[in-house]
């Protein structure tokens, strides 16, 4: 093998020949490709050798160099809210049809749109905002950072000659506010470096584990003309299709075959690497009970079929079923590595930085989740006969199915006992949405207490797709749904937000939804409170609970009419209060979407939990404090 490497590095053989030789020596095709990539010549040498079509020289303003490099990187959309100083960026797009501008009217909404687009498409979301509005953008970059979504955020800063003079809208070192929420941030130092800096930013943002990056362009650099090279994406698209070590995979396969009581937990990386089908195959091959990411807050995908008899619900601590686990296989979940007494932990993750971070693992593997799971399936099949595997799977499935069928019966009972009278409950709404939404709907979720509805609905690779955010910053949902629809225009998209989320973001996303004729349905779960928050606070039995005073969570005064708010932006909307009218209302929304129009449904819902009946809140009137009636 060493000889092969030497020949390749000495340019005696081609990369294809190297890959072929490595495969012949016993490596998998993926592993051989990865090794060949790792041995690739440095960028400068590669640049020199690259075909002319992959590199072109151009003369233009800094703004033009930025947008042309983005175009060469495959960027389709720029999400923006403009400032005066970034006008060279938009000047460069006047006659450019390859990039579509998408305007948002607040920086947080702009980032959330780009984030939703990136989650649904797997592509880079590019954002241009005013430097002075950067802190607004950072609030939503929290979601992108925590959930490892590729976002490039750029802003123009004051001209270099003005730096340090504390001029209008100069905030010295403002780029540092992005530091905790970015993988990389950089300020361009010359117009000639803008394309190269942009190329590097795209590489950082998109290389798994993905993350936001931030670029700052001094105004004078955006306006100045320079000649620079534009690089095709093939020159910096770093493949992370890495496979785990063969011996590690064999060891993992042996452990899960021989386990007496195994558990498979899965997470968002399964969705990010499109590995849903492989996970299902592995689970069925070995009869593994599958737990998703969980807790009442949940995380941002549901990549396993939720009606499957092997799906046991969210991963909890000390799970009653399957009880004392002896082998815990975690695939693609940042939060799945949990200390389980007596269990050996195997974790396959695409993110090496958080692997074995939450808890120690006996066997950790960095891998593309689809390829790694495929290797694990192959290794399992190589270690046991089909008859033996069938026997193992049947015994485990029987145990798990006994548990899940009882869970299913209770769910059916809850559905049956959920009343139609009175106010609309979360349960009733979940049941009705399950009955009325198309099976290929993308359900974009930005709620807290509304996650209770998830249990009544079905999810999975061949079912409704669930896209949300981790439990971080609210206010993402409407803009996120718009971004998802942009990425998947041919699928029904329903954005579900709490009234809390709506108020966090404000109505600004409706402006973009309306302007760009985006046929999404927005559902507002209007229970006039941060309902889960109040429940969590009151459950501690503290003074607010004792006194029956909700000091913080009631939202119903003023009682916001979200339908009217929506109509003000040109988005048709209605209020729904009657549980029996839910399906009719959803039908009207679907009809509007089919006609190319967005629609908003403001569902007036019952609050639930401790203190739910009370609308008490600490009132205060500025008007009553006046001594002068002005």
């Amino acid at each position, binding site marked *: 093998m060493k000889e092969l490497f030497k020949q390749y590095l000495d340019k005696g053989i081609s990369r294809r020949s190297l890959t072929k030789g490595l495969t012949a020596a016993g490596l998998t095709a993926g592993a051989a490709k990865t090794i060949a990539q790792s041995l690739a010549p440095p960028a400068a040498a590669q640049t020199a050798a690259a075909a002319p079509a992959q590199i072109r020289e151009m003369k233009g303003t800094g703004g033009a160099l930025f947008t042309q490099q983005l175009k060469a990187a495959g960027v389709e959309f720029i999400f923006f809210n403009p400032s005066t100083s970034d006008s060279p960026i938009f000047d460069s797009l006047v006659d450019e049809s390859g990039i579509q501008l998408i305007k948002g009217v607040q920086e947080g909404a702009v980032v959330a749109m780009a984030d939703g687009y990136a989650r649904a498409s797997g592509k880079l979301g590019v954002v241009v905002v005013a430097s002075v509005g950067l802190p607004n953008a950072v609030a939503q970059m929290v979601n992108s950072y925590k959930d490892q979504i590729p976002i490039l955020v750029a802003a123009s800063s004051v001209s270099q000659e003005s730096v340090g003079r504390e001029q209008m809208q100069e905030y010295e070192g403002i780029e540092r506010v992005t530091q905790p929420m970015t993988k990389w941030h950089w300020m361009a130092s010359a117009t000639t470096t803008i394309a190269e800096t942009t190329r590097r930013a795209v590489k950082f943002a998109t290389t798994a584990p993905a993350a936001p990056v931030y670029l700052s362009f001094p105004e004078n650099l955006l306006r100045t003309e320079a000649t620079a090279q534009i690089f095709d994406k093939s020159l910096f698209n770093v493949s992370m299709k890495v496979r785990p070590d063969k011996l590690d995979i064999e060891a993992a396969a042996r452990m899960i075959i021989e386990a007496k009581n195994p558990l498979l937990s899965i997470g968002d990386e399964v969705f990010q690497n499109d590995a849903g089908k492989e996970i299902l195959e592995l689970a069925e091959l070995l009869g593994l009970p599958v737990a998703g990411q969980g807790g009442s807050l949940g995380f941002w995908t549901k990549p396993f079929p939720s009606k499957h008899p092997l799906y046991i619900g969210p991963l909890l601590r000390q799970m009653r079923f399957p009880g004392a686990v002896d082998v815990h296989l975690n695939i693609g979940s940042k939060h799945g590595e949990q200390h389980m007494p007596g269990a050996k932990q195997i974790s396959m993750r695409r993110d090496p930085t958080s692997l074995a971070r939450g808890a120690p693992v006996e066997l950790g593997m960095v891998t593309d989740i689809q390829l790694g799971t495929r290797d694990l399936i192959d290794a399992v099949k190589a270690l046991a006969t089909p008859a033996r595997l069938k026997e193992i799977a049947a015994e485990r499935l029987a145990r798990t199915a006994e548990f899940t069928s009882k869970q299913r*019966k209770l769910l059916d009972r809850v559905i049956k006992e959920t009343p139609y009278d009175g106010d609309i409950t979360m349960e009733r709404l979940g049941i009705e949405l399950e009955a009325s939404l198309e099976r290929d709907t993308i359900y974009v979720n930005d709620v807290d207490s509304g996650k209770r509805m998830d*249990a009544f609905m079905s999810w999975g690779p061949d079912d409704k797709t669930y896209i949300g955010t981790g439990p971080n910053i609210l206010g993402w949902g409407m803009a996120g749904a718009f971004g998802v629809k942009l990425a998947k225009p041919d699928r029904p998209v329903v954005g579900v937000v709490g009234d809390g989320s709506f108020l966090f973001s404000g109505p600004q996303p409706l402006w973009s939804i309306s302007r760009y004729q985006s046929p999404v349905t927005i559902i507002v779960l209007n229970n006039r409170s941060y309902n889960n928050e109040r429940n969590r606070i009151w459950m501690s039995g503290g003074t607010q609970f004792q*006194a029956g*005073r909700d000091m913080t969570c009631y939202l119903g005064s003023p009682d916001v009419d979200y339908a009217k708010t929506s109509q003000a932006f040109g988005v048709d909307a209605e209020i729904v209060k009657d549980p029996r009218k839910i399906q009719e209302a959803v039908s009207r929304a679907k009809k509007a979407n089919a006609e190319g129009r967005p629609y908003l449904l403001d569902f007036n819902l019952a609050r*639930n939990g401790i203190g739910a009946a009370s609308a*008490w809140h600490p009132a205060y009137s500025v008007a009553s404090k006046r001594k002068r009636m002005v």
Partner: protein
Amino acid sequence: MRKLVLIAAATAALSTVAFAQSPPQLPPGEGRDIVAVACSQCHTTNIINIMRKSAAGWREHVYDMFDRGAQVSDTEVDVVVDYLAANFGPGVNVPKFEVAALPDGAGKDLVQQRCGTACHDLTRVVVPRHGRKDWDRVVARMIQVGAPLTADEGKTIAAYLQEKFGEK
């Protein structure tokens, strides 16, 4: 003067905080083991100790937890609800609250006897100020989750509370 009485009542009631903050203790009985394990998968069982509900109220609560992922099955749910209602129902294992002085009026005795003894003290009744609709809703909700009141008694209480402790 009324204000002074209420402040005194609130102070006295808050002295019973030990009820809410006592360590989690699950009384013996069928269903305890399920509750001990299934509920503590997500939170401490102290939360159970601070609430008092009828079987209907606990059923609603248990269903809510199930919706959120609690591992309870159809064969266990009735046992769990019965256990919770028997051990954490209205008037069960509740410390003796000091009875606050309330302003006279029709319904005063009902409030003192029913609202400030079975589940919580009177602080939660007399401190917050509610509007008319809100008091109706609060009392109706209390009956729904287990307050030992008839519908007529509920109306009397709501009317009294609206008059004496309504929004100013």
